[in-house]
């Protein structure tokens, strides 16, 4: 049981939660995630750790309302408890000084990108970050990202904020302007696929942090498997970061949709129940 000590709405659908988890706060590094469960009948869902405070013994998570489980989590208030939190899981980001980093984050993917950007900046790299969202309200953590970036470009699909266009438009502009040593991308699978295609064209080594379906998160179930370089890998114990150019994003996109129908049903069922109550 982990207590929620702070909660902040970034938008109607995106919420920041600070929760008590002293052991995790102490051992986590950039790139790590947790698996959590809300209620004794809840499912286990993975979420990247966005930050931690070792003195207070807390970790920060950012959650987007997607389906029943994330809604249950977002509906918890300060003082409430999350039933189970396990972590830190996955491999930490391999951070070293390489020169200039081009980071890209889409939607709520900016949350897991934040600790990675922070770590690369602290390792002495020049960091340029491209943030992308459908519209102005969905741009999150811009201020924090700016703190760790030498330059930030914001792209919105509808042009309501920053520049109009896709994340790849912003990135290509930078790539044409200066030499990039490493690209890092976190966001929806479809976005990472196109980022990967772009950087492949320019032969820029790229890391993608993958967010697949998981159950246990410790290597036991294989729900999170992806094909990387023609081999089956488990995101939970082999990842979550992989060489983007080796990842079979089409297969990953397919697998992410495995429970789409069931999720919609569960969502409608939940909303019905919620309304009745």
């Amino acid at each position: 049981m982990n207590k929620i000590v702070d909660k902040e709405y970034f938008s109607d659908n995106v919420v920041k939660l600070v929760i008590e988890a002293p052991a995790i706060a102490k051992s986590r590094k950039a790139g790590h995630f947790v698996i959590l469960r809300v209620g004794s009948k809840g499912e286990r869902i993975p979420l990247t750790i966005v930050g931690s405070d070792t003195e207070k013994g807390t970790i920060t998570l950012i959650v987007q309302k997607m389906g029943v489980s994330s809604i249950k989590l977002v509906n918890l208030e300060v003082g409430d408890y999350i039933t189970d939190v396990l972590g830190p899981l996955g491999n930490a980001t391999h951070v070293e000084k390489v020169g200039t980093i081009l980071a890209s984050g889409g939607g709520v993917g900016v949350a897991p990108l934040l600790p990675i950007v922070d770590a690369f900046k602290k390792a002495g790299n020049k960091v340029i970050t491209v943030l992308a969202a459908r519209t102005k309200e969905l741009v999150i953590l811009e201020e924090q990202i700016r703190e760790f970036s030498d330059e930030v470009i914001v792209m919105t699909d509808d042009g309501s904020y920053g520049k109009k266009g896709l994340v790849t438009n912003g990135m290509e502009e930078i790539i044409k302007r200066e030499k990039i040593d490493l690209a890092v991308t976190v966001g929806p699978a479809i976005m990472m696929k196109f980022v990967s295609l772009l950087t492949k064209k320019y032969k820029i080594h790229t890391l993608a942090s993958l967010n697949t379906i998981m159950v246990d998160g410790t290597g036991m179930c294989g729900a999170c498997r992806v094909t990387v370089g023609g081999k089956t890998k488990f995101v939970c114990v082999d990842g979550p970061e992989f060489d983007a150019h080796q990842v079979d994003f089409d297969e990953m996109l397919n697998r992410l949709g495995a429970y789409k129908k069931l999720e919609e049903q569960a969502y409608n069922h939940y909303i019905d129940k919620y309304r009745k109550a």
Partner: protein
Amino acid sequence: MDRILEYLKKEREKDWRVELRGKMKTKERTGLERLDMPESDPNVRNKSYIEVNKGLSVEQAMHEAHRCIDCPKPTCIEGCPVGINIPKFIKKIEAGEFLESAKVLKETNALPAVCGRVCPQEVQCEQACFYTQKLGKPPVAIGNLERFAADYERDNGQVSIPEISSKNGIKVASIGSGPSGLAFAGDMIKMGYDVTVFEALHEIGGVLKYGIPEFRLPNDIVDVEIEILRKMGVKFVTNFIVGKTATIDDLKKEGYTAFFVGSGAGLPNFMNIPGENFIGIFSSNEYLTRINLMRASDPEYDTPVLSGKKVAVIGGGNTAMDSVRTAKRLGAERAMLIYRRSIEEMPARNEEIKHAQEEGIEFLNLNSPLEYFADKNGRVNKMKLQKMKLGEPDNSGRRRPIPIKGSEYFIDVDTVIVSVGVSPNPLIPKSMKDLDVSNWGTINVNKDSLQSSVSGVFAGGDIVRGGATVILAMGDGRKAAAGMNKYIKEKVRNIISLVKEFKTIGDILDFATK
């Protein structure tokens, strides 16, 4: 060993045993027929999660207990990985002292209700039974009797808590709460240690909870046995993954002296054939975890599972059998088991094979998958199989399957469960650089003490064996407990003898500064 034999002999010569033996002639005993375990109707049970085996009644148990002739040399005990005093617990049943019988079980077995259900007795105690060995008759139903005694005390609300030695205050930890960790914890707490069991998942029990289905081992029954350990003083910490949440070195700083690694065989194997990552293809670990641990088939629970009408399970072990029988219960019209050898070579227990056949599972023996195909949504809809024939025996002693050229054919499937073994979980080995591991990733241990290459770190169960049974894991847990106790006592003795050498305060200060 001699001490144990002497103890067993003494126990056998106790008045009540001698008297009981005298009540019925051996000839009469061996003339009694072995009773079959009562079972639920196959066509009812294959649509629900009720237990398949219903357990013996008091009369049946008494009858079966009379069959045991209380041999002077009880070979059955040698066949038991946790060394249960088998004749004694059976004779307690014959005497009508069922609660006492359960106490005998718990002297050496932390999970008798579990073992009475899932142990492969036919290759252990019952295989070594006098009836099997010398009479060529069906053995005493030791497993059924074990289950009877454990169930009797639970169902009558008279569960006893084993006695424990006075506390010695020494902190030890088990990493993992599966069968090996629980057996380890049970022995260590009895010896007076301060025992904490760390578990990564949100529930205690490991494979007993996430792996073995309700119809074979109800989770409630596991919980009762865990509760006994808790009452004996074992502490359980869930949501804690040693190696990640904290390392063994971190825990040492918190005062833990020694560790038992029973983290199980984590990673599921796949066959690496085309199409294996389509939607609807699971590892048996994932499929069973969703259903057993996360209760995906209960609409009240949030975890979903895909389980269709045409389900193929790949493999021939107990886990494959559990998966295919679960699929049947979830409404599969065709629940098929695809195995590359013949039924004789199947590693699954005969009982499981029999139960599966009764429940309407289709056995596609001598078949091996080659490729999977999917519909436009990426969901598996077809698989290509190849027929096999048996060749010469391989290293495992089983006849090697050989593909028959040109025998390829297709079947329609909408769900596939791959159950072709597991590999050791790399999390613990990865977090400990000095730990000696084999090429397969299992932890290498001393075969007597089960100590690893790292002093004070012991290991057992599937992380050492690579994939075995509940009872062998429990045997390892007990062996490691004995090994660890010896290791700690020796360390304590060394310190005491060292302290005795000191003659002055100066000696102590000298030593301390070193």
